[in-house]
């Protein structure tokens, strides 16, 4: 299994802040995102500006996933 965490507008689009999904052994982050886009088409517009983190570290969408990874999808920041 891998654990997905959604924030801000992405969480609103997905209707939840977290989800657990089965791990495809070949899966990278782009594949997970593509699956989410099919379910939530409004995510398509977010793709260019979204960054991903695995277990708290920023990674590229090509990053390969391992069991029990926590994948966070992060929109452009707005703190301060």
């Amino acid at each position: 299994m891998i654990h997905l965490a959604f924030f801000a507008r992405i969480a609103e689009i997905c209707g939840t802040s977290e989800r657990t999904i089965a791990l495809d052994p070949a899966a990278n982050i782009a594949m997970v995102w593509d699956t989410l886009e099919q379910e939530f088409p409004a995510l398509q517009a977010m793709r260019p500006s979204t960054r991903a983190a695995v277990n708290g570290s920023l990674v590229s969408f090509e990053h390969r996933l391992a069991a029990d990874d926590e994948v966070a999808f992060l929109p452009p920041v707005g703190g301060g």
Partner: protein
Amino acid sequence: MLAITDEPLDILAVRAAVLDKTCGGVALFEGIVRADDDGTRCVVALEYEAHHSMAIAEFERIARDVHVRFSGARIAMVHRIGRVRVGEPAVVVAVAAAHREQAFLGCRYAIDELKMHAQIWKKEHFSDGSADWRANDA
């Protein structure tokens, strides 16, 4: 003191966290929720959300940078999450140093880095009941 809280910010506590006997100056920055008005609607509150562990890790990185770049300056930084009304602080940064220049420069550096890199998001709530997420300028 590097923290994210859903409580109103205690500015004097943030300031007190950086004071010691080597300190000759403290620069204090408060980021305040502003009533932005685009002519048809006005901001009444901001709602903040954070990836807590990533945001704190970024605060720690900024604190190390400030210490190294600005002659051992000491920093405290607290950001609020949840709904923050116009006029209230959403973030407080205090930087103490032996001399004022390092305190001012360190404080400016820290808030700029926070706005650019910390995993925190804000949603603007408007007077007409509408709301939208708002990213910082890159």
